[in-house]
């Protein structure tokens, strides 16, 4: 008897929903829809506004410009899903990049070995973050604030502050900057690697138990633990995998810049967090998707590139992106208030 009244009540509340509430519901299930909408609007707007935006070569450039941050943002997404934050992304990437470049250029190591050592180092750096977060129980913000300085300092000390040109490195290290194209539309192998990272991690996060635990730990760590999820192991794993991805981003960056410079991408942490947040992932953890992050990274670059093609001085784009971040977080807060 209770059941019939219950479902009648549910039916009643369903009918009561305003269009806005229905939208809220849709977005709750698919938080990447609003950034996707924004991306499409931006594309249409820039297409109308400037003839040099939606061309084959421009689209190739846009993807190339997005690649490094998009890769870093995968690691950042994993960490933010666990309600953490990683300020050391760029530092880990640069350290890994300087080590692989220097081992190959100055140490004469074969490219593959140098690459593997560099990526392993980044993985280890991620694991160190994870260790400090899970075993010493420090807040991720503090841990990565510390390791940001530590890894940056090590990279500067190790490299002596000087950069290494790609022509001194074996081809493999610079390979991701090489490309292929269909007419004027040129892609680099780096973009292919980023696509693979998204496909693999997208699968892991949405189709495996591990991925589900990442969400569970981020949403409510204590409940996850009581449910039998090995919270600490998952967290450690997340930081380690993020480190691995930063190592791959280091490889990408060498190809992109044609050099390894110890102070490259100084605000990589903020750029990656921006992409994640605009992509609809909640800074409070447990909510978000990798596809959203990819869209977020694309939005940032689309605005920057589109405004540049309009001949707008680039200072204004920071303002535009600032507005986007605040709007994205406001939408996230609104979506979280969804009721049955």
């Amino acid at each position, binding site marked *: 008897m209770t059941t019939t*009244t*219950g479902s009648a009540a549910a039916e009643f509340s369903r009918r009561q929903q305003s269009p806005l509430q229905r939208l809220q519901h849709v977005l709750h299930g698919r938080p990447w829809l609003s950034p996707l909408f924004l991306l499409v609007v931006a594309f249409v707007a820039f297409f109308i506004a400037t003839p040099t935006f939606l061309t084959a070569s421009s689209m190739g450039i846009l993807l190339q410009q997005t690649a490094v941050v998009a890769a870093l943002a995968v690691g950042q997404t994993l960490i933010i899903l666990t309600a953490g934050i990683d300020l050391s992304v760029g530092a880990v990437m640069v350290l890994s990049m300087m080590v692989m470049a220097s081992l190959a250029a100055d140490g004469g190591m074969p490219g593959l070995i140098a690459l593997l050592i560099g990526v392993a180092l980044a993985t280890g750096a991620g694991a160190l973050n994870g260790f400090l977060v899970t075993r010493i129980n420090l807040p991720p913000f503090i841990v990565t604030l510390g390791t940001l300085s530590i890894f940056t300092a090590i990279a500067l000390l190790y490299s002596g502050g000087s950069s290494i040109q790609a022509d001194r490195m074996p081809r493999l290290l610079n390979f991701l900057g090489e490309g292929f194209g269909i007419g004027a539309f040129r892609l680099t192998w780096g973009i292919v690697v980023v696509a693979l990272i998204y496909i693999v991690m997208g699968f892991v996060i949405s*189709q495996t138990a591990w991925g*589900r635990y990442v*969400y569970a730990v*981020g949403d409510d760590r204590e409940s996850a633990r*009581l449910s039998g*999820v090995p919270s600490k192991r998952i967290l450690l794993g997340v930081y380690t995998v993020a480190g691995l991805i930063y190592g791959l981003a280091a490889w990408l960056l060498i190809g992109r810049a044609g050099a390894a410079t110890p102070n490259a991408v100084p605000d990589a942490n903020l750029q990656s967090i921006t992409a994640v947040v605009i992509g609809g992932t909640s800074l409070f953890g447990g909510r978000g998707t990798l596809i959203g992050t990819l869209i977020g990274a694309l939005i940032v670059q689309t605005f920057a590139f589109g405004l540049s093609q309009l001949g707008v001085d680039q200072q204004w784009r920071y303002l535009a992106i600032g507005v986007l971040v605040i709007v994205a977080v406001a939408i996230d807060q609104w979506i979280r208030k969804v*009721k*049955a």
Partner: protein
Amino acid sequence: MSAERLPLTHDAIPESRRHIYESDPILSARDLVITFGRVVGLDGVNLDLYKGEVLAVIGDNGAGKSTLIKCITGAYVPDSGTLELEGKRVTFRRPQDAREAGIETVYQQLAVIPALDIASNLYLAREERRPGILGSVFRMLDKKGMKERAGTSVQNLGIQTIQNMGQAVETLSGGQRQAVAVARAAAFGSKVVVLDEPTAALGVKESGMVLDMIKQLRDTGLAVILISHNMPHVWEVADRIHIQRLGGCAGVITPQSHEMGDGVAIMTGAKTLEPTA
């Protein structure tokens, strides 16, 4: 080598339910003692739990009711005393041990993940993978299968307000969340389900739904321990009522043998229970 049974208040148990007590208890606790520094948490408590019954545990704050439950579910390790599950001696060092042995707990804070959907919550930390290479090599989850089986187990509890297993738990009402948590506790071949204040935060209708669910659990042959402050609820669903007082057991009554007022009086020490023969 199972412990001797505790005496039952047999004559106060209705004829229709007497069969429950013909078999041996599924869970027996004997002389449980636990101290916290100089504070005595439990002072030699005994308890028998039978398959298919609802045993309510009531008591004032600090009477040791939570402590008793935590000793049974592995959250605390008693200083002395024994636990037997289906006649076998068991020792729980952590909650995971108790769960593996078949004792499921629905915590007051529910331990559900709001952002995940119902099926994901039911199967949290017990995910099932796809058959074949997709599962073994790619570790792919069998989302569809889990969703279907989740639907079945929720239905088995007689909960009809939850239809869509893909719905996020945070969009559910308090009673529905409680139902998800109970469904999870009941779903995995468990023998004993412990419910900690399941109706505390619910309205009248939702409480009714949860009480129905508890009866459903009992009827499927599970042993249920219900901790509650709500006497009408206890008197509605319980077969027997274990009264904790000052770290010890003040007695076991039944809704038929005593009025609610008597129960509260025993709980607070205003009355003492005459030992039954």
